[in-house]
């Protein structure tokens, strides 16, 4: 049995030592002598969150299929261990071999949300890798970033050697082989990076310079060397049915957030909601073959022993073979006592029928995400869900025995007025009233219905039609939340409605990090040095530290959040081509202001640009 990096004394002192010992079912242990390429794959958050992420499972499996490559995992040490490691100078290690990250060839970090950026610095720091890419030398691992946040990598450009833009299945093998060649022929770090910058999909920040206008916006963003591409097209796996997918996903010992087998049924979304970044980034929609999925479902359940399988996609109801797949799962899995979890299903007769078969109606709640309170505003954001759909779905659900409903809305959407906010309360109230209309008194379980209405604050994201939009200030956000609360309190059925709203401070900060440029990098470095980590955990988020850091770095938050952007402005992320054109996004932004909707990809092509990839929904 391998020796652990942490002593028994430390492991007995900290919370949940199982986070740090590795050895889980289906973890991959190779013989060090048999490999010449060591990759540490990091999710910069605590183990329970990182282990729940599907992307790591896919790429971990892929890397370990490559000859001579051993990919291991590393997560952010929780704050208790973080303090001990700093005090005792213990280097951060990978779970499988327990070897220091510093000795690896690559440190690959997946960037799933902006609020993890200080944890990226924590991981680098604890590993003993210089925080700034420019300070690293030939002995340091190559630090690669991937995931949705790389679609605007500029705020963290200083900390990474390479960003892989797009889906990981396509170019890693090529990049690994290039790295081996360079390393084995004694080329320097910089020489390798120069070659890597020419591999499609790779962005090496060191080879690009930015100049700014007097008003702080970008004047020019361009390569600083001959032969480095000016624009980077995202990588995309067009044959999603015949690519890497794990048959033996990892099974943790401890309880994690998503403790189940995950079957990704398709990538992308046909819907085109204008606030949604994922809906644009993963275009075009590509479905996995249903036979392939059935085969994976059986194998993954057998190899993990998990008691639950979840279908994953941005909008599962749009998967064309959904009834066939679900019937297969119900028939095959129910005899083995497997639970089927179906997030992101549209509520209609079909989905309610399915859910009544696979879930305990008394225990589950139904989720609707109208996102906006009025039809007008739902048209602005192109959320193709009408009040009729919602009330119709709720009626069916209440008739079927459900008594709990969750509603998700956003506050601060472009063009929002007090009437739209009032609409949130009205819709919540109408759903409660529907319950009392539909369910006769004698049939009401506990006599009541529970509506939970939640609002989040809208943060405009790059590569969405709202990338030009002005974000609300913290004060505006909070005022909107109070208005929502009061509007709900004034309703007849207010006792059946519980209202929650999210933090405003983090929404503002997320806005800066999402649409930030390279100047924001200093602030992240500064706030990390003040001790900020685990910013996505409300118990550790310290807004004052961030405010101080912005002030010390002389960076204005408002410049990134509340400022109106003209359609002429060069955005920090404009050098990335995500498949969807800026012209299309502009058209959608204009349509939004005219309160016009756009049809989904199956009904009518909107000419977004993703057809150039030559497949998926564009050609079916």
């Amino acid at each position: 049995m391998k020796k652990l990096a942490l002593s028994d004394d430390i492991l007995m002192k900290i919370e949940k030592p199982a986070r740090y010992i590795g050895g889980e079912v289906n973890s991959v242990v190779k013989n060090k002598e048999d490999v010449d390429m060591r990759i540490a794959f990091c999710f910069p958050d605590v183990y329970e969150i990182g282990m729940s992420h599907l992307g790591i499972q896919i790429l971990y499996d892929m890397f370990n299929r490559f000859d001579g490559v051993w990919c291991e995992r590393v997560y952010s040490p929780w704050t208790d261990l973080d303090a001990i490691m700093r005090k005792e100078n213990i280097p951060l290690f990978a779970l499988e071999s327990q070897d220091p990250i510093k000795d690896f060839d690559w440190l690959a970090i997946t960037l799933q949300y902006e609020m993890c950026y200080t944890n990226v610095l924590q991981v680098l720091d604890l590993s003993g890798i210089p925080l700034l890419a420019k300070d690293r030398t030939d002995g340091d691992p190559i630090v690669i970033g991937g995931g949705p946040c790389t679609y605007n990598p500029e705020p963290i450009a200083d900390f990474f050697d390479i960003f892989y833009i797009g889906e990981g299945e396509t170019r890693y093998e090529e990049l690994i082989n290039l790295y081996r060649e360079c390393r084995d022929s004694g080329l320097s770090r910089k020489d390798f990076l120069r070659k890597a910058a020419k591999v499609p999909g790779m962005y090496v920040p060191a080879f690009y310079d930015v100049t700014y206008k007097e008003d702080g916006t970008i004047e020019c963003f361009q390569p600083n060397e001959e032969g480095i591409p000016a624009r980077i097209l995202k990588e995309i796996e067009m044959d999603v049915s015949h690519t890497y997918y794990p048959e033996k996903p990892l099974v943790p010992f401890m309880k994690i957030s998503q403790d189940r087998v995950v079957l990704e049924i398709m990538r992308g979304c046909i819907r085109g909601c204008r606030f949604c970044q994922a809906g644009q980034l993963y275009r075009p929609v590509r479905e996995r073959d249903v036979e392939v999925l059935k085969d994976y479902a059986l194998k993954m359940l057998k190899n993990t022993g998990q008691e639950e399988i979840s279908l994953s996609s941005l909008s599962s109801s749009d998967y064309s073979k959904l009834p066939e797949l679900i019937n297969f799962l119900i028939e095959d899995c129910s005899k083995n006592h497997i639970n089927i979890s179906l997030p992101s299903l549209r509520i209609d007769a079909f989905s309610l029928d399915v859910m009544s078969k696979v879930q305990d109606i008394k225990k589950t709640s139904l989720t609707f995400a109208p996102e906006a309170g009025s039809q007008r505003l739902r048209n602005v954001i192109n959320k193709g869900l009408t009040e009729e759909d919602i009330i119709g779905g709720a009626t069916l659900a209440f008739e079927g025995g459900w008594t709990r409903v969750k509603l998700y809305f956003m506050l601060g959407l472009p063009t929002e007025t007090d009437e739209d906010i009032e609409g949130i309360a009205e819709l919540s109230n109408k759903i409660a009233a529907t319950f009392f209309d539909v369910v006769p008194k004698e049939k009401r379980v506990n006599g009541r219905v529970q509506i939970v209405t939640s609002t989040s604050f809208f943060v405009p994201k790059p590569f969405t039609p709202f990338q030009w939009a002005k974000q609300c200030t913290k004060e505006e956000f909070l005022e909107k939340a109070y208005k929502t609360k009061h509007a709900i309190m004034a309703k007849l059925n207010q006792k059946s409605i519980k209202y929650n709203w999210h933090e405003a401070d983090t929404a503002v900060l997320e806005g800066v990090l999402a649409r930030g440029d390279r100047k924001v990098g200093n602030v992240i470095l500064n706030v990390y040095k003040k001790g900020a980590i685990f910013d996505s955990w409300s118990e550790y988020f310290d807004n004052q530290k961030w405010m101080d850091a912005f002030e010390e770095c002389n960076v204005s938050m408002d410049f990134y959040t509340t400022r109106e952007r003209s359609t002429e402005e060069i955005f920090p992320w404009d050098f990335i081509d995500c498949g969807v054109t800026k012209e299309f996004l502009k058209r959608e932004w204009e349509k939004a202001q005219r309160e016009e909707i756009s049809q989904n990809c199956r009904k009518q092509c909107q000419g977004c640009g993703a057809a150039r990839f030559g497949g998926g929904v564009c050609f079916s």
Partner: protein
Amino acid sequence: MKIRVKFAKFGNLKFIGHLDVQRFFQKAVRRAGIDVKYTTGFSPHQIMSFAQPLGIGLESNGEYMDLEVNSFTDSDDFVERFNKASVEGIEILSVSVLPEGSKNAMASVAAAGYTIRFREGRSPREGWQERLKEFLASETIMITKETKKNTLEIDLKPGIYEYRITGDSIYFLINASSSGNIKPGMIIEAFMQRANEVLPENALLITREDTYTNVGSEEEPEFIPLDQIGEVIHAKTSDCLS
């Protein structure tokens, strides 16, 4: 049909807790393709029960889990299938079939045997073996135990059924029943306190050697390991030959 699974937990897996072990076996049973019985109702679960939770940091050569199964081949086959579905750090030692109507593992537990060693540099003053023997021979071994409501004076002595000191290691057979469970560390702490010594943090390396049930009476107990209640059933080799 109820089977009793005996397993060892060791090495790095001493850092996973009791709930994690339960979760591990729920999944291992599926991976091993064991035809386990489920409860009826809307959220069916495997009919499974564990003898005695093992604290984090302890190793064990004698953990037990009872499982209701619909079908059974033979003990060797089950041991092999379980071990194939397991990981380094949990090893299935035996599978036996319980007689109809046996008490479940948890209710059966009466005593447990532990081997204790001191970590390097954390043992008491030299000659501790003699002093410990003397201490264990005392009429009573009183300790104070803090509960939520008050502090209790408890005598550990009646719960220490057997002890041996061999070289640097101590063996205890002690009460592990739900009413009088003794943690082995409690005895060592009481000893150190009596000797006016302080037990350093994390000083003990503890292995549970086995878990026992009482087949005698309360006054004259007779302890046997939990798996001896059941019967190990080997494959009938003659069948294979014919």
